[in-house]
């Protein structure tokens, strides 16, 4: 702790201990606590307390019967926990009997303050912080805290109740960490006393007839199995699973949703995989059975899945059914990429289930049973399930599937893309899933082209995309364009794709959407045009229908957008496209690169949107790298060997940069009022300086041209007066200015956030004191 803060601390502690000085703003207390946490994480708490006795005094003060604010009391409890997290400091506080008096029966626990939820919450959080070491466990056992935590599980405040459950999980985990020798036995006597007590409590709750108690126990178990995969959790599950199974047999099943959560969470620990995975799959098995007649066709779960009774139990109402299915799909989506996912992974069945689910939502499935018809009625038009199922279907594209199922996948995707009833968000997901499935479609060896099936699909897809690009709903037009950009980026070079695309109206529509009234759509159209143009897929200006028209090249179209569009998004998109074009040596750019860069930089420098200016610097950097002969990311297949050393003198190499007025742009950006722009410019100039320093010849370094006028102009710019242009700069002048500037210092200053002064702990302490009028003059920052 720095001395300034140490000086302020006693006064602050006095304020906190004084009930007449109410703390109006409890975010201050939170910040203060955060600060103490940072300090104690970095150093010894014991030392901190010894050096600042006012802190212990403050804590002791809490023990006196008085009218303290519940916030301060709660804060003190939490602070004590933060200190006591370190074992030596814990012992120190124990000696003073401070801990038992704060957290035991004698403390706030028995007093009037306990009625305030914030105090109960502080008590729990304090214990949560200090429960880090074996001594803490003994303490918890001795002071009877565990029983109090049990009762707080049913607290009227949801926050307190939830925190109490979390604390139990934490204590259970902590006490089981102790006996590390081998897996724990099933014998009750072998478990540490504290753990035993908690598990007994859980068992008792699970046997209870009261649903809230069962729910509490299930929640504790769910959190335990969700966060901890140690061997003892397996033993715990073996011990408790009969009780949990007993709950499943009751009619009706109590706390059904918490039970499902638990079963989902036990699916994670590897050892329980098969057992839990079956439970996880059950809802999908029901879905699959809803439309198949053959018994056992699901390949997932045999037996009762799909019976009316099972369906009624698992998926009773619309809300429950939708909630459970969405959760199941989300969990499976998380499981899929994990190396420890259950094996064998029922890819085909899951694929079938996802397709069926989508068909049920659309009304195109043909249920074969009453249960199926019931499901169909529940799911019809349900956007949430549609979204979740499309996401899941997309994820499943990482695996393979039987060809006939893949055909069905494409069919259902097309159905969704076609349906006038698909909501914009569903449509977006359908586009994403489609792209992923196209990506994963089998490839002919040695050929990157789409396989025949995907190509057939593409032929059906393009008319749909065409129609979607004309949708009255802008979100739909937008996601259609994004999809087009992705597709073109991936297959734009392939003959069959190009042929299909050019035969459709899509490129022409894209060009028209550059003038869409919605700025997001224009931005996406810009990106799509950029991609199409890169692949030579833009509508040719020479095509007969454009004869005599004012058809412009994509470059001039985008330049027009950059200089005239009233919204930032399309302009940003245009800058991204230009940067990409420059990087890829786009045909329209290669013709006269300097003119292109100069034009773009000139427009970008006047843009009001800082992202456009920042992107301008990105473009400048690409140009700079190309000019100085160092590719930003060397391409392994590049034919030309990397430039070994500049053959030309440095000044000559910099000439093109001067001609495009890159330096004027960069210097202007250096003093930009938006920090990211200035930082980026600083990095660019530093890069250039490093580059020139390593390659400049001694003669060049010795030349000292007159830089005074430029430096004077830059100073005015820094002061905010950017009216005056720099005029034509000579490379030598630029180099001299670069050498003379304190760019490192500038970078350091820019790296600090603008509120770094206001955020300091000292400022916090001052603010807190100022609000109660302890400091003579009010130095609080107004921000």
């Amino acid at each position: 702790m720095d001395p300034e803060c140490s000086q302020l601390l006693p006064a602050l502690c006095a304020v906190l201990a004084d009930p007449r000085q109410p703390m109006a703003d409890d975010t201050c207390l939170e910040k203060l606590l955060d600060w103490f946490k940072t300090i104690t994480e970095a150093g010894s708490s014991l030392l901190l307390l010894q050096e600042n006795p006012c802190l212990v005094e403050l804590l002791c003060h809490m023990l006196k019967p008085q009218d303290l604010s519940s916030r301060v009391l709660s804060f003190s409890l939490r602070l004590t926990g933060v200190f006591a997290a370190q074992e030596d400091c814990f012992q120190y506080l124990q000696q003073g009997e401070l801990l038992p008096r704060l957290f035991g029966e004698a403390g706030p626990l028995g007093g009037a303050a306990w009625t305030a939820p914030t105090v109960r919450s502080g008590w729990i959080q304090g214990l949560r912080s200090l429960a880090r070491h074996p001594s803490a466990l003994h303490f918890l056992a001795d002071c009877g805290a565990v029983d109090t935590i049990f009762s707080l599980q049913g607290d009227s405040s949801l926050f307190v109740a939830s925190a109490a459950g979390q604390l139990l999980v934490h204590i259970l985990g902590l006490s089981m960490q102790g006996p590390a020798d081998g897996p724990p036995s099933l014998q009750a006597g072998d478990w540490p006393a504290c753990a035993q007590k908690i598990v007994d409590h859980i068992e008792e709750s699970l046997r209870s007839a009261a649903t809230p108690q069962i729910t509490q126990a299930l929640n504790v178990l769910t959190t335990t199995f969700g966060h901890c995969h140690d061997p003892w959790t397996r033993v715990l599950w073996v011990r408790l699973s009969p009780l949990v199974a007993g709950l499943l047999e009751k009619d009706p099943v109590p706390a059904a949703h918490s039970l499902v959560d638990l079963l989902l969470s036990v699916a994670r620990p590897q050892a329980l995989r098969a057992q839990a995975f079956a439970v996880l799959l059950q809802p999908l098995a029901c879905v699959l059975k809803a439309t198949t007649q053959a018994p056992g066709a699901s390949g997932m779960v045999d037996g009762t899945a799909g019976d009316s009774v099972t369906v009624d139990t698992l998926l009773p109402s619309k809300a429950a059914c939708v909630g459970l299915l969405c959760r199941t799909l989300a969990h499976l989506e998380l499981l899929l990429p994990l190396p420890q996912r259950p094996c064998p992974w029922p890819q085909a069945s899951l694929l079938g289930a996802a397709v069926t689910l989508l068909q049920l939502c659309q009304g195109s499935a043909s249920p074969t049973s009453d249960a199926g018809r019931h499901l169909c009625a529940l799911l019809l038009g349900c956007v949430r399930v549609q979204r979740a199922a499309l996401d899941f279907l997309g994820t499943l594209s990482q695996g393979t599937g039987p060809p006939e199922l893949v055909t069905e996948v494409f069919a259902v995707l097309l159905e969704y893309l076609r349906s006038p009833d698909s909501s914009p968000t569903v449509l977006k997901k359908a586009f994403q899933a489609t792209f992923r499935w196209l990506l994963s479609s089998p490839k002919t060896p040695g050929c990157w082209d789409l396989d025949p099936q995907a190509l057939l699909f593409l032929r059906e897809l393009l008319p749909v995309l065409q129609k979607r690009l004309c949708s009255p709903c802008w979100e739909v037009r937008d996601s259609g364009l994004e999809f087009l950009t992705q597709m073109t980026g991936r297959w734009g070079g392939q003959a069959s794709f190009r042929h299909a695309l050019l035969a459709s109206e899509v490129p022409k529509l894209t060009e028209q959407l550059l003038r869409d009234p919605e700025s997001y759509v224009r931005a996406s159209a810009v990106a799509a045009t950029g991609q199409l143009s890169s692949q030579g897929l833009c509508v040719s200006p020479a095509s007969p229908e454009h004869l005599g028209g004012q058809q412009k090249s994509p470059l001039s179209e985008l330049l027009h957008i950059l200089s005239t569009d009233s919204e930032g998004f399309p302009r940003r998109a245009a800058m991204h496209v230009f940067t990409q074009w420059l990087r890829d040596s786009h045909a329209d750019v290669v013709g006269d690169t300097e003119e292109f860069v100069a034009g773009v930089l000139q427009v970008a420098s006047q843009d009001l949107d800082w992202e456009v200016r920042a992107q301008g610097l990105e473009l400048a950097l690409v140009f700079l790298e190309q000019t100085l002969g160092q590719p930003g990311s060397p391409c392994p297949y590049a034919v030309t060997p990397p430039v070994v050393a500049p053959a030309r003198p440095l000044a000559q190499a910099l000439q093109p940069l001067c001609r495009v007025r890159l330096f004027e742009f960069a210097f202007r950006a250096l003093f930009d009022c938006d920090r990211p722009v200035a930082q980026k410019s600083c990095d660019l100039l530093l890069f250039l300086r490093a580059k020139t320093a390593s390659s400049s010849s001694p003669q060049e370094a010795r030349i000292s041209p007159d830089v005074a006028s430029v430096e004077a102009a830059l100073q005015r710019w820094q002061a905010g007066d950017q009216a005056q242009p720099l005029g034509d700069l000579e490379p030598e002048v630029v180099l001299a200015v670069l050498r003379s500037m304190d760019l490192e210092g500038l970078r350091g200053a820019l790296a600090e956030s603008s509120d770094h002064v206001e955020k300091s702990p000292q400022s916090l302490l001052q603010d807190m004191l100022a609000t109660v009028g302890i400091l003579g003059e009010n130095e609080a920052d107004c921000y």
Partner: protein
Amino acid sequence: MKLYCLSGHPTLPCNVLKFKSTTIMLDCGLDMTSTLNFLPLPLVQSPRLSNLPGWSLKDGNAFLDKTELIDLSTVDVILISNYHCMMALPYITEHTGFTGTVYATEPTMQIGRLLMEELVNFIERVPKAQSASLWKNKDIQRLLPSPLKDAVEVSTWRRCYTMQEVNSALSKIQLVGYSQKIELFGAVQVTPLSSGYALGSSNWIIQSHYEKVSYVSGSSLLTTHPQPMDQASLKNSDVLILTGLTQIPTANPDGMVGEFCSNLALTVRNGGNVLVPCYPSGVIYDLLECLYQYIDSAGLSNIPFYFISPVANSSLEFSQIFAEWLCHNKQTKVYLPEPPFPHAELIQTNKLKHYPSLHGDFSSDFRQPCVVFTGHPSLRFGDVVHFMELWGKSSLNTVIFTEPDFSYLEALAPYQPLAMKCIYCPIDTRLNFIQVSKLLKEVQPLHVVCPEQYTQPPPAQSHRMDLMIDCQPPAMSYRRAEVLALPFKRRYEKIEIMPELADALVPMEIKPGISLATVSAVLHTKDNKHVLQPPPRPAQPTGGKKRKRASDDIPDCKVLKPLLSGSIPVEQFVQTLEKHGFSDIKVEDTAKGHIVLLQEAETLIQIEEDSTHIICDNDEMLRVRLRDLVLKFLQKF
């Protein structure tokens, strides 16, 4: 109470309700699907159409009412719910001896007139050289090619009515406003309620003092141009007759409008023309409004929109003047003052132009690519026939079907082979089954009556259990030519008491809040009203003896014994008996009450809820004594 079902078409209903001596026809829709059996009537001589193999007959349109079921001249009133459901009106009012009144709202009548006028105009402007009807003979019909030979009851098909008949029919309409109460012969009261489907569209409440029948026909809960549906007034119905739900329950109107716009833009951007076969009123207003918002964003500002109909001008203008029948949003515009529909602006800026027919101004203004809205949706008559012939050969053009009344494939049949694209975007804003189920939960009628089509999923989607009416008790269904006895009995009737008679009553309070009085009067019934009048006085004059009225005015009453009321508390009764010297009393409980046994006197008193019997052995003295004791517990009046 009976319901005669004259139409099997759920959205073009025609039912007759007999309720309390009144005969009420509910709607008279005209099912025109039989026109699909005929060749199109071209405005311009079409060599292709005239060379098609066919029968040289043009017998007009069809009317499928099963008139043998009921004598239509006995119909007292006809209630019209919307302009689509009145197209058969001239057939009923002009040819059946109908002498009653037709009730409809003003927009229903005016727009109905436009639809009829358009229909008559379409048919009459291409007069047929000859007409044939012999083929309707069953023996000949059997020899005709399919589907003509399978058409049912062709004998009921009729020629189209004339404008004269239309005018005469419309003159029988009495205009009504929403929530206006109309007395029918004093027996029932009918009230139109806003149904939210079209300008002036109504549901009807038909009620007596103790019974309420709701007739729901063509209602919508979507926010389009008409006034929103009045649901609250439908509550507490004994019977709710439910017709006119959406014909395309799987197509969501919003999605279809999007589809319509996308396909339109795609075609026009490609240099093609768009043909929209439609009615001159209704959904077209909403489509024009959507296009108004969409054309700028789609870059279609320079594309002309043409609306061609003999009644185009009137339709566009009428829509702007019925402000009180519009939704709240549009009503408020009128006060700004602005036209409620944006098509006014489209017309002002020359983006939308309307013409009575394609002859005349239109042919000189016509510019392509363009969008044409014109009738008739059946593609059998009207200007649309010409455009189908004109544009059908190019794949650049598109015909977009938005009206759900006709199968678009059948409508297109005589134009095949067709190069132009065909898009089916049926827009039907009427209630779907989810909305119906919410509505029924909300208004909770005791019984629901509906066409049989609504009680099972559509045949093509038999698994879609959601596409049917699901209510408790299950809906009663009807089919064409059926007579339903509506499932409730009338139990009460309201009777008025003349003031002087009421004055003379002397009520007696028998328990708090309930008083009784005996009445002797003459029941007078006239015009379905029942009145209790004082009985006629005897011939000899009496005067100033009002208080002894009972003995003087109503001599017959002398023989009447007083009426008793109240109940006998057994314990107290036993105590009273004991006080009066009876002993050895035994009380037995029975299913209906008690038996008090006076064993000594060999007497038995049976006390039940509505009777008391004293059974004793020929001891009249004892019986009278006991009777008086019993009477002490009862009130007399």
